[in-house]
């Protein structure tokens, strides 16, 4: 194939597929990847150019995404691969559900059988930490517009919240903290959902995460910055001036524009505040939970909550400096990705201690069946951020009175696994 056809017209996808912009943002980042610095007019011209050069209609996916260096038998184009990856990521929701649902069903049956005291074995503190991780990643992925990953994290939030609700109704969690936490979770999920739908946060008029910059700071994806629709409003105002409309209609339109601007500002403020809170909480939780997973228990008891306080204080300082625009641009832009990094690092620290224990003391693995192990590998492979659900701890494995699969998937020995993010 002619080399001139290389790359075809990725930017033209946004116009060719006819998908609404807002849906496209949530569906895939492929279009956003290709929309940078390419105007629609240029895309159209590029199609015309490619057609002229090739002398054939380049409407097909293969033609659009073909490269002379790629053999002709390769038919997996960028767009098709995007769909495959989306499907795979979406399919991860199903096994993710199977990780927690059996425990929820079992808890319900225990409560129905008049044994709510059995739920006391659940380490709800670890569940709360896991819920925080899910919320962090939910905000991160919704900010990216990754629908499939957002759904997985949303499922994680909902199932963990359902589990904590069961424990609360069983009387093992104080009602006050539970209600406060529930309100915070509902607010967080609602804000993330609004962000996914483009109702808050820095979204331009096309629903794209790429937004204008403030103070020369590139605002892309989950980077925080203000968003103004002044240019659009100005255009509309100029258009109004050309039309012969009555003053009352003008006033009404201006009022609507003012309300829209205020609503947009409110949405941006809400998202910015939420991101700030998550950043501080994530910075507090990362050293606290991470060090608890890695350090010996005696040392953990000695340092107490110092790591969390230090991390949270650092987060507050960074947040204040960011508000005062005293942070370097690199740090300012990194704040939006903080929730993703903190949650990822939290999850990354967890298996290290267990793995070290496994290699150092293989006897702790005694009694673990190979079948159960094979099943336990599925969740982390399917969804990395769910691997806390199938986490094994030495203490858990030593509890031979539990059924192995129950230990793997339900972790009924959660009380002994503290500090532990494992699902009970």
């Amino acid at each position, binding site marked *: 194939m002619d080399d*001139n056809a*290389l*790359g*075809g017209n*990725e930017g033209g996808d946004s116009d060719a597929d006819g998908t609404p912009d807002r849906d496209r943002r949530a569906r895939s*980042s492929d279009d956003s*990847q290709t929309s940078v610095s390419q105007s629609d*007019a*240029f895309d159209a*011209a*590029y199609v015309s*150019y490619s057609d*002229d050069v090739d002398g054939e209609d380049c409407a097909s996916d293969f033609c659009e*995404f073909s*490269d002379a260096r*790629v053999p002709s038998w390769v038919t*997996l*184009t*960028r767009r*098709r*691969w*995007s769909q495959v*990856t*989306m499907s*795979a*990521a979406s399919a991860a929701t199903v096994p993710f559900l199977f990780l927690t649902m059996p425990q929820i069903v079992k808890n319900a049956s225990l409560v129905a059988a008049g044994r709510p005291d059995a739920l006391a074995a659940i380490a709800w503190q670890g569940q709360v930490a896991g819920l925080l991780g899910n919320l962090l990643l939910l905000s991160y992925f919704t900010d*990216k517009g*990754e629908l*499939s*990953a957002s759904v*997985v994290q949303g499922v994680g939030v909902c199932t963990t919240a359902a589990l904590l609700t069961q424990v609360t109704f069983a009387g093992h969690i104080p009602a006050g903290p539970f209600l406060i936490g529930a309100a915070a979770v509902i607010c967080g999920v609602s804000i993330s959902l609004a962000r996914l739908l483009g109702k808050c946060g820095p979204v331009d008029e096309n629903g794209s*995460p*790429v937004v204008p910059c403030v103070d020369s700071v*590139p605002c*892309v*994806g989950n980077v925080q910055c203000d968003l103004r629709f002044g240019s659009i409003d100005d255009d509309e105002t100029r258009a109004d001036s050309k039309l012969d409309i009555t003053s009352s209609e003008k006033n009404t339109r201006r009022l609507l524009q003012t309300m829209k601007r205020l609503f947009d500002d409110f949405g941006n403020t809400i998202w910015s505040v939420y991101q700030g809170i998550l950043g501080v909480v994530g910075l507090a939780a990362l050293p606290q939970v991470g060090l608890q997973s890695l350090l010996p228990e005696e040392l953990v008891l000695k340092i107490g909550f110092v790591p969390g306080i230090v991390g949270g204080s650092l987060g507050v300082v960074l947040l204040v400096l960011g508000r005062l625009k005293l942070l370097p641009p*690199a740090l300012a*832009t990194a704040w939006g990705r903080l929730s*993703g*990094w903190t949650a*990822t690092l939290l999850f*990354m620290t967890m*298996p290290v201690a267990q*793995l070290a224990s*496994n290699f150092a003391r*293989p006897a702790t*693995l005694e009694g*673990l069946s*190979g079948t159960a*192990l*094979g099943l336990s*590998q599925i969740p*982390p*492979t399917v*969804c*990395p*951020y769910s*691997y806390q659900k199938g*986490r*094994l701890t030495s203490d858990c494995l030593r509890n031979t009175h539990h059924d192995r699969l129950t230990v793997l998937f339900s972790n009924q020995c959660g009380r002994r696994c503290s500090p532990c993010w494992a699902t009970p």
Partner: protein
Amino acid sequence: MMVPRALYTRDLIWLTGSTWGCTLMGWGVMLSLFLGRHVDGTRYIDAFTFGALTATFFLYLAAVWFVDGVSALAAGYHAGWRLKAWNFQGAADAQPRTEVKKKRDEALFAKRAEGGFETKTE
């Protein structure tokens, strides 16, 4: 199953977490079980099962990187195994394009500015 999407979007955070999770928590724990032995000397997992799962797992990862790289090259982007493919400044939505693609884009921009498309000649 999340790794392909993380790689496709060139999301370093996502790819780090997903790869770490399935490698360390998945295959790593399985390796520890393969190396560990029962009291009677037998392994927790037999060599055939461990070998088959290991081959499947790493072949899957290799296939994902290969297919993603080919599709990226076909679309005018850098393959994921090149550092140029990754934007470390946070602009994850803007994947760097290959030099060939960039030069062609620049030429097309220049041609468009000159009105060259209307002549339908190249």
